């Protein structure tokens, strides 16, 4: 890829703000406009900008391609794990009210929704990055 100082500098400056905004969108899901799906895509878009500006070698040195798949599975695991936790506390699958009434902590229901949203965000981010890396890499990963 051709060197371009303007693109690299602007993306180096804006990527932290995009990622911060993505985390805000994920965490803000329970009390305003936001949620895991939207925030995950915004977070993935920052890595796509990284790929556009710095190329495949640039993104390989910053994130682990193998680890991305672990993240994709971890998000689903968090979501289903919260659901199974509700069964342990004598409720239905994904019935968060059972944990709240068993532990007696107020607002636990909203907190569990936030954790579930974070799981959604992790999965969406990891899958988006995984797909874009698969399409960007024409010669296959065997090269490195």
């Amino acid at each position, binding site marked *: 890829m051709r060197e371009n100082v303007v693109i690299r500098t602007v993306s180096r400056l804006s990527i932290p703000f995009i990622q911060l905004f993505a985390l805000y969108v994920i965490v803000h*899901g*329970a009390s305003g406009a936001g949620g895991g799906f939207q925030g995950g895509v915004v977070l993935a878009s920052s890595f796509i900008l990284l790929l556009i500006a710095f190329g495949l070698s640039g993104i390989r040195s910053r994130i682990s391609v193998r680890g991305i798949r672990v993240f994709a599975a971890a998000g*689903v695991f968090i979501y289903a794990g919260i659901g199974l936790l509700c069964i342990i506390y004598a409720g239905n699958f*994904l019935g968060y009210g059972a944990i709240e009434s068993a532990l007696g902590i107020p607002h636990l229901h909203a907190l569990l929704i936030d954790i*579930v949203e974070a799981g959604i965000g992790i*999965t969406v981010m990891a*899958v988006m990055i995984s797909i874009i890396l*698969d*399409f960007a890499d024409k010669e*296959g990963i065997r090269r490195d």
Partner: protein
Amino acid sequence: MKKLALIAVIFIGIILFWAVEDMPAFGDPDASANQYTAKMYIERTLPDIGIDNIVTAILASYRGFDTLGEVVVIFTAGISVALLLRRGEER
């Protein structure tokens, strides 16, 4: 074969546009969705769940199992693309 596909698409399209007539008008207060379910969610989200955002309450709590399925669909899509395009990575 192409003509047959075109005829099928046009036929199904006409049926779909025909069915649109029977849908309730946008924002119709007499539609059954606006009379019972919407009212129920607006009344019960705060006492049931304790969060302000009704959309998130429906997405993550009332329809939590549906959303789990959506996440699994996205995960499956990512794994499928990796399986199809990422050949020869594992030894």
